[in-house]
C-alpha cells in the first residue's frame, strides 16, 4: 500500500523527470505571427494609478468626476430628446448597431418575478447598445449595457477582474446548438423533443441547484416563454465534470480571452428563459456569481425585456 506521502513524492519526481524541450521553435512562429495579430484594446486603461503620488491622484480623480458628470448630463439630454431604440443591424452573429441608444425599461408589475421590479429598473451607468443575433434560424435584436463584452454567441461582464467574469448571458437552441447538455442528461429524461414547459419542469429538478422561482409562464419579445431561477448549491461540486463551465450548457472556448466564465459555483444564480418561437425553442441563460452586484441581474433582466424577434 502506497502512503499519501509516498504518492506526493512519486508524483513530484515523475513530473520533474518528464522530458523538456526548448520552445524556441514555437517562439519563432508566434513572433512571426505578431504582425498579423492585432491586440484587443479594452475601454479601461492598464492600471497605473498606484504608481502615482497622492498629489497626482487628486486632480485626476477630480477630473474623472467632472467627466462623469458631463457625460451623465449629456446622456440625460439625449434620453429626453431621443425617440425609440435604434434600428437593429442585421447579421449572422450578434453585432452592435452603429448607433447607441438609451433604452429605459418598460414599466412592468413588480409582482412578476420574470421582470425587473420598479426598484431595480434604474437606468444604466453605461450607454446601451442595440445588437442583432441569429441562432438556429431564430433572429432577434436586443439591447445591453455597453460594458458587457461581446463574444460570438454570448456576453460576459467583469468589473472585479483581473479576468474572471462575474456574469454571463448566452443563447442557443436546445437541445444544443453549442454543445451537449450534460446536466440535463443526468436527469435521464429526453430533452431532445421536449416542449417549452417540459424543459422548464426538467431543469428545476437538476441536482446541485435549488429553485428560487418557477417554472413560470411569461412573455419574451411577445412570445410565450417559461422562466426559471435557480440558486446553485454545494452539491454542484459532485457534478463538477459534467455541469461545467455553465450549468446545463457548455460552449467552445473563446480564444479572444477577456472576461472569462470558468466555473459554475455554489451560490451562483442561474436565470433561464425558454422561448417558444413558431415551434422552435430559444434558450436564454444567464448566470451570475455572488461577487456580482444586484446591478448585473437588473441589466440581465433589462436585456431580456429588450428582446424583439425579427
Amino acid at each position, binding site marked *: 500500500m502506497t502512503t*499519501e506521502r*509516498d504518492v506526493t513524492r*512519486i508524483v513530484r519526481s515523475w513530473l520533474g*523527470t518528464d*522530458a523538456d524541450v526548448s*520552445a524556441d521553435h514555437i517562439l519563432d512562429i508566434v513572433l512571426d505571427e505578431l*504582425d498579423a495579430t*492585432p491586440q484587443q484594446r479594452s475601454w*479601461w486603461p*492598464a492600471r497605473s494609478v498606484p504608481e502615482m503620488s497622492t498629489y497626482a491622484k487628486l486632480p485626476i480623480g477630480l477630473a474623472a468626476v467632472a467627466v462623469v458628470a458631463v457625460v451623465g448630463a449629456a446622456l440625460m439630454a439625449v434620453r429626453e430628446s431621443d425617440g425609440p431604440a435604434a434600428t437593429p443591424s442585421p447579421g449572422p452573429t450578434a453585432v452592435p448597431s452603429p448607433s447607441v441608444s438609451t433604452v429605459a425599461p418598460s414599466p412592468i408589475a413588480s409582482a412578476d418575478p420574470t421582470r425587473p421590479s420598479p426598484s431595480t429598473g434604474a437606468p444604466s451607468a453605461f450607454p446601451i447598445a442595440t445588437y442583432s443575433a441569429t441562432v438556429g434560424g431564430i433572429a432577434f435584436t436586443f439591447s445591453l449595457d455597453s460594458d458587457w463584452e461581446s463574444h460570438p454567441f454570448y456576453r460576459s461582464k467583469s468589473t472585479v477582474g483581473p479576468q474572471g467574469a462575474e456574469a454571463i448571458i448566452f443563447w442557443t437552441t436546445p437541445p444544443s446548438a453549442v454543445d451537449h447538455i450534460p446536466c440535463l442528461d443526468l436527469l435521464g429524461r429526453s430533452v431532445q423533443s421536449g416542449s417549452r414547459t417540459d424543459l422548464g419542469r426538467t431543469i428545476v429538478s437538476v441536482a446541485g441547484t435549488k429553485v428560487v422561482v418557477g417554472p413560470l409562464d411569461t412573455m419574451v419579445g411577445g412570445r410565450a416563454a417559461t422562466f426559471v431561477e435557480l440558486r446553485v448549491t454545494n452539491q454542484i461540486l459532485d457534478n463538477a465534470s459534467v455541469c461545467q463551465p455553465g450549468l446545463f450548457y457548455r460552449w467552445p472556448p473563446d480564444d479572444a480571452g477577456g472576461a472569462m466564465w470558468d466555473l459554475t459555483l455554489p451560490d451562483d444564480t442561474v436565470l433561464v428563459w425558454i422561448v417558444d418561437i413558431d415551434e422552435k425553442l430559444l434558450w436564454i441563460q444567464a448566470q451570475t456569481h455572488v461577487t456580482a452586484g444586484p446591478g448585473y441581474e437588473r441589466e440581465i433582466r433589462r436585456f431580456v425585456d429588450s428582446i424583439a424577434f425579427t
Partner: protein
Amino acid sequence: MDTDLVVRAQRGDKAAYTLVAAQIADRHLAVARRILRDPDLAEDATQQALLTIWQDLPRLREPARFEAWSYRLLVRACYAEGRKARRWAPNLRMLTIDGPISDVGLSSVIDRDQLERGFRSLSLDHRAVVVLHHYLDLPLDRVAEILGIPVGTAHSRLHHAMRALRAALDADARPAVQEVI
C-alpha cells in the same frame, strides 16, 4: 517577470513582448506537456496561449499579476486542445522519459506507466491542479487564483487527483498478490 516589460508590451511594443514571451515560453511548454501528456497538443496549446496573451495584454488590468494570468490562458488553451483531441482522434502518444528513474523514488518503469495511465484518466481540471501545485510548486491559493476557482475547490480537486493516482499505483501491486494466492 519585469512589470515594465509587461506594460510596454501592453502598449503594443513587440520588442518588449518578444522578451516577455522568451521568458515564459519554455516553462509554459513544460506545463502544457505535463497537463496534456502529448507533445504535439502541448506545442499547439503553448503557441495559442502565447498569441492570446499578446492579443489580450491590453485587457489585463493588473500587470503585476501577469504570471498568474498567463498561466490561466495557457490552461484554457490546454483545455481547448484537450477537447479537440477527445473529439477528433484517440491520443495514445506517451511523453519520453528523460533522466534517471530509480534515484527519484520510482520503484520501476511500471510505476511510471501506472502513473501515466492514472494521470490520463483524470480530467484536465484535475491535471491542471496537480501540475500547477506539484510541478510549479505553487501554493493552492495561487492555483485557485490562476484557475479562477475557490481555494476549497482546488483542495478538493487535488485530493481527488492524488487519491486516483495512489489507486493507480496500488492497482499495480494488487494483481501480483492475487496471482500468488
